[in-house]
């Protein structure tokens, strides 16, 4: 892997009481990365995303985005600088339609969301952009249907659409296909594969077939610490990884 790191964590550590949920985690995402984060349940994958996005504050360590230290920067400001996430459990606006939701995200990015004197349709560029994002995610037909009435798979796509509207440099996808039937999750990942080549993507996924298909780099997280980070073919052959996953299969 060549290229400069766009996102970097250095020795990030987080404790809940005596429980270490993140232990000395160092990651580095180059521009355009397709990086998978895998590991058994409770390994601290979502916790790591919460730490990177500023939902949780690390007890130790540093996080940098494009060379700048963002360890103490507020969550919304990190998004504005190009670090955006999606949620494992749908975190959408149930009473808004997809076009309204994405338009809101576009307006926030353009600092136009506070303009109470301008008609919504006056933001024509933003509306076009929001619609283009929905089209890209094949949600254009559902653009004016209330989010709560959308099919579950469409809601998962809207999660990604909202994130794309912020124009991220780094996109963190927390189990984008969670709860989606197997045949549909492949389609969902084809959408992810079609994301711009200069966007770095870090994704959590349990389906190993999808991970090996779409990831160019894999980090295995176990009990809050990095077990191994390597290219997919090395991970595939690593006996420790097999043991973790087989062990998981025995217990669960």
């Amino acid at each position, binding site marked *: 892997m060549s290229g400069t790191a766009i996102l970097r964590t250095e020795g990030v550590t987080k404790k809940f009481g005596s429980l270490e949920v993140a232990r000395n985690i160092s990651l580095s995402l180059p521009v355009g990365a397709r990086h998978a984060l895998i590991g058994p349940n409770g390994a601290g994958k979502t916790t790591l995303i919460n730490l990177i996005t500023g939902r949780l504050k690390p007890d130790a360590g540093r996080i940098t985005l494009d060379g700048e230290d963002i360890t103490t920067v507020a969550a*919304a400001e990190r998004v504005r600088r190009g670090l955006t996430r999606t949620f494992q459990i749908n975190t959408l606006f149930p009473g808004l339609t997809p*076009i309204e939701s994405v338009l*809101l995200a576009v307006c*926030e990015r353009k600092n136009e969301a*506070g303009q*109470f004197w301008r008609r*919504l*349709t006056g933001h024509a560029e933003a509306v076009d952009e929001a*619609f283009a994002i929905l089209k890209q995610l094949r949600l254009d037909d559902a653009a*004016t249907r209330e989010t709560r009435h959308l099919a579950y798979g469409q809601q998962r796509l809207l999660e990604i659409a909202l994130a794309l509207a912020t124009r991220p440099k780094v996109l963190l996808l927390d189990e984008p296909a969670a709860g989606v039937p197997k045949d549909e999750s492949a389609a969902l990942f084809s959408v992810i594969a079609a994301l711009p080549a200069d966007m770095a993507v870090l994704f959590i996924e349990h389906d190993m077939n999808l991970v090996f298909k779409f990831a160019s780099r894999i980090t295995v997280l176990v009990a809050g610490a990095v077990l191994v980070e390597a290219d997919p073919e090395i991970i595939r052959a690593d006996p420790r990884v097999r043991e973790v996953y087989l062990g998981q299969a025995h217990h669960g």
Partner: protein
Amino acid sequence: MRVETTASGPTQTWLRRRSRITAVEIAFWLATLLPFVLFPSYLSLASQIAIGALFALSVDLVLGYAGIITLGHAMFFGIGAYAAAILAKHGWGEPLTGLLVAALVAGAVGFVTSFIIVRVQHLALIMITLGLGLLTYELANSFSSVTGGTDGLGVEIWPVLGAFDFDLWGYTAYGYALAALFIGVLLARRLVNSSFGLALTGIRENSARMPAIGSTYRVHLQKIYVISACMAGVAGALLTETTGTVSLDTLSFQRSADVVVMLILGGSGRLYGGIIGAIIFLIARDRLSDMNPQYWYFWIGLLLMAVVLVMPGGILGGLSRLVRREAR
């Protein structure tokens, strides 16, 4: 007619249709003129209703759109009422500048308190708004040299635009309050149909997502709180100017609670809910207190419970659901 060429054309049209003025709306505003000819002896009640409706509209902006539950909004109503009264007491009884000063003073207090408001949620938020309301009431009570204490203040208000004197029958009062309500609705309409209105709805629908789309949404909440405070202040000033008096009751907890009841009755988050609620609530109070002056809240309580149980979206919400079912 312009032909839409972009692929988003139908969506643009859909967005535009959402903010279109409807025939029902036009009919409603024409109907507000009826009291002048049909019920000239009820014009002072009609102006009370218009003022109550403007106050309810101000609460709808924070409660219905932004999801800030408040039980202390009478503090802004009362501050506006006293601002206009004190200004008139000091020799400037011009009504329009009275409204402006009331809006500015209430807005300034709203700005200062907004820093606390946006930091709390749920029960704590209700208690903070309640506490601020009680605090303001007792402050006004103790500074009786300025506010007149429990006696209140009687003031001299000049004619509106130098031409329309406040008459005994309430022609000017109702015309003046109705014009203010109309302008208030136009402004609120513009606001809720803007990107800012969309952001407020987003906060109400899911504030947890807002930071994840890069929104510093507390700033939005502060902004709408100040706008709402200004509007409530204007409503209070209208009461002072149309009645020529102000009393502590403008700041009372009862008024804060009543306005929320009006809004829930009519339906929150729909602009006209507060207006419908004010009409029903104030006419019911007028009729019921004639029949039974002591126990009229019994019926309001019953009505409130019935509406909340049967029509969760208030009367307007229930009606729009009926219309949609008929259309199908």
